[in-house]
């Protein structure tokens, strides 16, 4: 690693102030950033650790919503959603491994917007609102392509509010090495329609599969999407799967999600 300083503010305001320094970078759970730093692929002057900010931690239920503090770990989300929010519980309890789940946070995940991160698919499917220290942003506007979000320099994800669906499921087909999703599909059946968030597959990062949403909104059954197909155009191709394979998997995982939703 190159050298840098670390600060550990205890409030959002202090963190925002610290992030105004030149080349300052926020550090959440660090499960992506620290390996990056070790490879000398990032050169911050100061890392602003967000892990000591209590106001960013915790989960609160609202009317039909779940608000998750940006600094809440995957492990805590998994615990809190057991039996109440099937899709999110599956998603959170299968990210990485137990040690990753003990450190990694939802805020870090959505702010990083890795094209194979799990959380963005839930945010899209559950019409999430991303709260920052300055504003609220709808998930549809927040995720802007691979590793790109609506966040400004120095802006922090303080919480994420998800609309709790009537039924949901998260289906992850793992890339054989990293065990990140090669394709991850979050299916959410809301009172006002079905939303399908897809991660791992597209060169443009997380997206919603509009045709499936439409078909499933009128008939929430795997058969409803039997006749649909996903275009391989603009899907990712790598050692572990061609665009065509990913397109195929999106449909398979979506069908399984519909069948499994609870």
């Amino acid at each position, binding site marked *: 690693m190159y050298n840098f300083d670390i600060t550990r503010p205890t409030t959002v305001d202090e963190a925002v102030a610290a992030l105004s320094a030149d080349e300052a970078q926020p550090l959440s759970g660090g499960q992506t950033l620290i390996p990056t730093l070790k490879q000398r692929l990032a050169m911050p002057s100061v890392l602003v650790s967000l892990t000591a900010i209590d106001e960013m931690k915790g989960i609160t239920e609202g009317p039909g919503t779940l608000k998750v503090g940006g600094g809440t770990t995957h492990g805590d989300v998994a615990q809190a959603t057991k039996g109440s929010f099937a899709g999110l519980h599956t998603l959170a309890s299968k990210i990485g491994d137990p040690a990753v789940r003990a450190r990694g946070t939802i805020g870090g995940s959505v702010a990083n917007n890795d094209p194979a991160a799990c959380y963005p698919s839930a945010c899209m499917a559950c019409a999430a609102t991303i709260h920052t220290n300055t504003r609220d942003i709808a998930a549809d506007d927040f995720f802007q392509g691979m590793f790109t979000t609506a966040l400004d320099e120095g802006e922090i994800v303080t919480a994420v509010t998800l609309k709790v669906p009537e039924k949901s499921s998260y289906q992850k087909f793992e890339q054989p090495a990293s065990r990140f999703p090669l394709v991850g599909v979050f299916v959410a059946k809301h009172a006002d329609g079905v939303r399908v968030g897809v991660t791992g597959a597209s060169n443009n990062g997380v997206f919603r599969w509009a045709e499936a949403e439409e078909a499933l909104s009128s008939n929430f059954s795997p058969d409803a999407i039997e006749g649909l197909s996903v275009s391989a155009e603009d899907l990712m191709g790598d050692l572990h799967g061609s665009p065509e394979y990913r397109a195929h998997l999106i449909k*398979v995982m979506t069908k399984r999600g519909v069948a499994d939703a609870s």
Partner: protein
Amino acid sequence: MPKDTGIGASTKRREDLRYLTGKGRYTDDIRAYGECAAVFARSTVANGKIIGIDTSEAEKMPGVLAVFTGEDFVDVGGNPAGWLINSRNGEPMKEPKRPVLAHGKVRHVGDAYAAVIAETEEQARDAAEAIIADIEDLPAIVDMREALKDEALVHDEIGTNQCFDWGWIEDNRAATDEAIKNAHHVTTLELVNNRLVPNAMEPRCSIGSYNPATDDYVLQTTSQNPHLTRLLISAFVMGIPENKLTVIAPDVGGGFGSKIYHYGEEALVLAAAKKLGRTVKWTADRSEAFLTDAHGRDHVTKIELAMDKDGNFLAFRTETMANVGAYLSNFSTATPTFLHGTLMAGNYTVPLVYVNVKTVFTNTAPVDAYRGAGRPEATYSLERVIDKAAREIGRDPIELRRQNFIKPDQYPYASAAGLEYDAGNYDALMDKMEEVADFAGFDARVKESDAKGLWRGRGVNAYIEACGIAPSNLVGQLGSRVGLYDAATVRVNATGNLSVMVGAHSHGQGHETVFPQVVGEMLGIDPASIDIVHGDTSKIPFGMGTYGSRSLAVCGSAVVRATEKIIAKAKKIAAHMLEASEGDIELKDGNFTVAGTDKSVGFGEVALKAYIPHNFPIEDIEPGLEETAFYDPANFTYPSGAYCCEVEVDPETGKVRVDRMTAVDDFGNVINPMIVTGQVHGGLAQGIGQALLENTHYNADGQLETASYMDYAMPLAEDLPMYHVDHSQGTPCTHNPLGVKGCGEAGAIGSPPTVVNAVVDALQRGGKNVTHVDMPVSPHNVWKAMQSA
């Protein structure tokens, strides 16, 4: 009641105590006063001409003590290949120099062209980045077929990318061609044996130190065979006299072949230690391990099997291109030849075998022996083509194999590939396998899988391998530049406890537990009073290290011989003490008794007498009780086995899950069943890993795309089942004193074809006419195969 100690007992491992409490001492755990750090500057291009390397900025950086480049090592030797192989036309192989640091050209991504020594590792890293390397990027030579066109060269000075073109057995070539031409049926299969990265969990690490007053060097390093490393550094690379160089391999966190070889980093830390008068440490990170550890396998093969109308095997013929990477690693020329071609008759009475191997230089990391080394390649080719043949002629794959097996009454058996098998019983292994694998329940399991929408398939395999390498006489004829014996010293201390110095190195195999079981049983004393000393050239007579499943068969035999000498001498001492004739002394339960009397002395008393030789027949017997033996085996040992795998294939995604894995092996006699079983487990996981997950991919520019665990798929706990392992059908090795064979590599040799055979079976049962899927049988590869079936 099973025994707790001695031969045949599953004695718990004593080494576990330190590993389980964080008190293991691996090389990177060692810290010396005044230690400084080495970091290497490595090529980012696969093939490049070094125009100039400017180290002036780096030398001025904070903490920097020295910077080395290839220029500093021009006058020292190179790291040699251990086997000289001749081509079919009699020409010796092409052997380019492998320097400590690249000079003139860089030849693969990760090839080190400079090294920085600094007070701290981060300082050295900072300085390594400040080195300005002017390297002209040349087109990368990656694909073996392209490489053989010699349009661009990895080594300009040898004028070709082909290291050698080897034929085995050359005299059988014409007859084999003829047999195939005239055969009733010929099955042909083209396949790839995928390139693997060994991935011992402990990355390599080397510490060099030097004492200018005595001119002594010490190298502490992650090695499977410290004596060989010393020999290579002394005789070939640096010219340090062997008596001035101590090589120590402390606790080593796995090897699997990758730590057999001498690497340039070891020479560099020694050179730097001498120049600076400081202890210099280098520790690889995982990325460096991927880029620079010797890789394994990487064969492209076409195999043909000729049969008569009854399914009798008439001939096997193979053509293989074997990648050796950018430089010849120490065993790289033996692995695709004598460890591969000689096994190409398998367990079968086939009369003719012809193997052709072209080894090819490419701009990739060196390729060398990895768990199994050559034998997995042979087994995979044979056992895949036999499976395909059975399907083509409508025969049961097990029955076809049984029909062609060598029978128990045919030993010793001279195989068509040039080896003399000493013992075996392949039908018995197959019978046992059918029982352990629960063939009876298979149909019911197929139905259960069907109900889940999954296709179940079953694959089998019969393998033989040659290990416990090897008779020096034989390997010498085959081109080895070293002998392959081993050595042990048994030292009985005055107070009756023992130190046993062994040439084999233990890095997971449990020697510290197993060797005392043998010695303790022979002497009739508690193994707890016997300690093993290994991994230090200053303490051990000599040794050729641990690889090729040789520790017990070769070094263990040396231990037996040395212990026999101890017994012989102790009997003389006891005879003197008991005033009896030497011929009347019997050793039983640790006591020397005059036959037919109750006169006896204990082992401890004899030991004490040897060291306090008051009233000692000094004319007949020297004081002391210490004996050394070197053991050179008469032959390889030949473990064999019958394996079975059941998989479930998800027809929608192509994902394969191994549901049942059965390994029935003949290891001859077994000293510690718990450890043997553990060795098989590990081999199975690596074999299943090769079959389903692991792949090493260089792109057309020679960039390694699978250079971390993000893209190199390691088998995890959830990818693997509980295994069914049996070694009840042992036929003892006929030529070593313990009757043992080797067990370290079997699992990795036997399992890959078993898994792939099972996948093909599942796809066929699912109605897909797929006859082969190359490894790794990843979901994507299976899906593609189903799409085109």
